[in-house]
């Protein structure tokens, strides 16, 4: 293509992006169409990928197409396998895309669509995509080493320890919060509970089918599992309409929490092939299909956004979670903008599959852009709802009251009119008894998704089916994270305990398997129980804690990346990772400070504990929970401080010449793929 034409095309993309962003940011009064968000996002990602990621690739990382990757050098047909770029892209995206980018934007929509959307776009282009890309490339240049190994080698022993502690903390808090989202989505919902309960025998059946009837035919088995899940959704409607059966599946939050804890323990202790692997396949199958379907639905319907760009709750008085737009919008949306968890995937399986160094750009930077787009779709799904409906679903009973009339009056008083009759009608149309106080983000997302689907595919008659499809999709997603996360946590604890007593590290020794499973399940189960028993709606306290711990891991990854860039004698470009690091440190420190010390009891753990202690009939358990959350938050922040401090010492030593700038990369070996391509 001639250069002037290329320049012209990019000018048009830039102008369209600027126009869309200006419309999204400056439009006031009447609602805007969701397509403005979609176009703004696509143009932003296109410009970010074409120019910013190319700058990083050529100037900062200096990707070398002649250098053999570990997939080529260490190829064993098992872990290290040179793989087509687009195949790795799909594999990497399937691994990084979880429930986080769906739930976070829905919760942050209480500030309006603008803060979350801008953070998703800017956070991804300048933070999340950069983190995933550089960590992937640095792992590729170190034989596919993990983030904790790189932190230990490049930053110091403390860095490795902090990274390990951060991973364990995130896993425990993440699993507790995720389980709470499922509990809030399924409580008093016989239809949803039946459908999700059925996914367990379906996964077991898939495991046996895959193992004995059609060995190795995973795609076929997953398609079969999907058909069975669809039948379970259809059957759920019948169950919910049959009083004797509905009673069996109408469960309280406490009962659901206990069942999920028992399930988590069983999933951790059962053989992988029986439950974990089939559920993982089923979840991935549903995930990829649903994300594609949601994108098509948004483009086909082109819905208007009823949520205003900014709501009155930017001042920190929001009912969904308390806290000002800064820093809490940036803590609430992690996975769609920047997620530390991604650095584990970027330094896990993916670097062992990359065929050419130059392909790390598309896989690392590009897959995160796709994940960010999923977050934009979640934001749209939340904002197509009438704000009154959104707040009625997402506000805890402790804020808006238990009675439908009282809740509707409170929400209408905020300037978002809603009536009890409208909410009753909506609940009936999706086959639920009530949609009030369904905190956690999942039900609101499901209603938004059902609204989009039913208006583009099938009409209002299918609203209930689409709603429960969305609930099933999210719960399946989350339970998969729960299965896998509990096991990963168990292995990490076993690895650590092996240093104390070797048999504890044996993954096939059942006393160790059972005790470490109980330890991990007990840890996240405690957070889940705490969330269920919190009268203000546990997601209010626990989601920010999850956001802080996830961003902490991103800070660790960016510390490692900045250290390596400085050691590569590229200090003049260190801002590429240093600026997102500074931003993350600023938001995590500010958020942590508020969560611990804020005098508003809805925000600060300690002030809430004091308030409870001062009230007659003080609940000692709730006071203890608040203080525990404060200690956990403080521990996380001390860990950030330590890793940043150790990194800064390392940077100072290298930049002042007291330490030789030397990175621990694998030696250069020329790739054979370059000559094959030339040939």
């Amino acid at each position, binding site marked *: 293509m001639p250069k002037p034409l290329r320049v012209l095309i990019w000018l048009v993309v830039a102008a369209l992006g600027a126009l869309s962003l200006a419309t999204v940011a400056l439009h006031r009064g009447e609602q805007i169409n969701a397509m403005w968000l979609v176009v703004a996002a696509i143009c932003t990602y296109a410009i970010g990928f074409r120019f910013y990621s190319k700058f990083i690739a050529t100037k900062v990382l200096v990707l070398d197409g002649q250098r053999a990757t570990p*997939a080529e050098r260490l*190829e064993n*047909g*098992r872990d290290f*396998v*040179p*793989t*087509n770029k*687009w*195949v*790795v*892209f*799909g*594999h990497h995206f*399937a*691994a*990084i*895309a*979880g*429930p*986080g980018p769906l739930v976070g934007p829905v919760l942050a929509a209480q500030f309006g669509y603008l803060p979350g959307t801008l953070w998703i776009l800017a956070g991804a282009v300048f933070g999340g995509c950069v983190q995933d890309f550089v960590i992937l490339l640095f792992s590729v240049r170190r034989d596919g080493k993990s983030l904790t190994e790189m932190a230990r080698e490049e930053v110091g022993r403390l860095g490795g320890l902090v990274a390990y502690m951060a991973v364990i903390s995130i896993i425990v808090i*993440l699993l507790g919060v*995720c389980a709470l989202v499922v509990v809030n989505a399924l409580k008093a919902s016989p239809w949803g509970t039946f459908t999700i309960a059925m996914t367990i025998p379906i996964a077991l059946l898939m495991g046996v089918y*895959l*193992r*004995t009837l059609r*060995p*190795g035919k*995973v*795609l076929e088995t*997953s398609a079969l599992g999907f058909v069975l899940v669809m039948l379970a959704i259809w059957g759920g409607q019948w169950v919910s309409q049959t009083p004797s059966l509905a009673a069996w599946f109408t469960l309280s939050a406490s009962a659901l929490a206990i069942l999920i804890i028992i399930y988590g323990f069983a999933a951790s202790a059962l053989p*992988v*092939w029986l439950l*974990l*692997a089939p559920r*993982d*396949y089923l979840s*991935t*199958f549903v995930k*990829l299909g649903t994300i594609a379907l949601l994108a098509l639905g948004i483009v086909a319907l082109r819905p208007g956004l009823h949520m205003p760009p900014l709501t009155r709750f930017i001042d920190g008085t929001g009912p969904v979670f308390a806290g000002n737009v800064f820093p809490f919008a940036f803590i609430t949306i*992690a*996975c769609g903008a920047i*997620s530390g*968890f991604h650095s*584990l*995937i970027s330094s*896990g*399986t993916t670097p062992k599959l990359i*065929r050419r160094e130059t392909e790390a750009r598309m896989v690392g930077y590009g897959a995160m852009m796709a994940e960010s787009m999923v977050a934009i779709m979640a934001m749209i799904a939340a904002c197509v709802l009438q704000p009154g409906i959104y707040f009625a679903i997402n506000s805890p009973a402790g804020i808006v009251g238990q009675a439908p009339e009282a809740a509707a009056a409170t929400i209408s008083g905020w300037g978002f009119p809603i009536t009890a009759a409208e909410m009753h009608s909506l609940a009936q149309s999706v086959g639920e008894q009530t949609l009030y106080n369904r905190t956690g983000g999942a039900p609101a997302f499901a209603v938004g998704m059902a609204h989009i689907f039913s208006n583009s595919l099938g009409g209002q008659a299918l609203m209930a089916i689409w709603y429960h499809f969305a609930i099933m999709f999210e719960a399946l997603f989350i339970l*998969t*994270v729960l299965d*896998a*996360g509990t*096991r*990963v946590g168990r*292995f990490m604890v076993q690895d650590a305990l092996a240093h104390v007593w070797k048999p504890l590290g044996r*993954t096939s020794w059942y006393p160790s398997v059972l005790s470490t499973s109980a330890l991990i399940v007990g840890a996240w189960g405690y957070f889940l129980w705490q969330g269920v028993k919190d009268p203000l709606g546990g997601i209010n306290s626990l989601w920010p804690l*999850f956001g802080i711990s*996830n961003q902490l891991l991103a800070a660790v990854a960016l510390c490692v990346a900045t250290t390596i860039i400085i050691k590569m004698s590229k200090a003049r470009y260190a801002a590429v990772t240093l600026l997102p690091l500074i931003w993350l440190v600023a938001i995590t420190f500010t958020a942590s400070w508020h969560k611990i010390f804020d005098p508003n009891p809805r925000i600060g753990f300690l002030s809430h504990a004091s308030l409870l202690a001062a009230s007659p009939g003080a609940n000692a358990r709730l006071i203890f929970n608040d203080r525990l959350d404060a200690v956990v938050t403080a521990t996380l922040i001390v860990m950030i401080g330590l890793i940043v401090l150790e990194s800064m010492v390392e940077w100072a030593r290298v930049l002042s010449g007291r330490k030789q700038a030397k990175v621990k990369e694998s030696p250069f070996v020329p790739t054979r793929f370059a000559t*094959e391509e030339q040939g």
Partner: protein
Amino acid sequence: MNGAGMDGAGINEVEMNRLHGKSMRGISLTAFEHTLTLLMAALREIFDEAAYARFLNRKQMTASRETYAAFCRECDGAKARRPRCC
């Protein structure tokens, strides 16, 4: 291609050349076929079918219950340690 004659997608050299847009026996793939092949390769990789194909190729075995059980035994440990993102 690589030594095993297999790509990460568990597809052979001929297919990989097709993926890269090279003509085989003078026939070029259309963009649609190319996309479809790539999509299937990605799905086979995501769903571990490609890993099973590589396992069979590496062990010089054919697909059966026993070989799939052996494959599961080999990869279960790695699979259970693989984090899934939130």
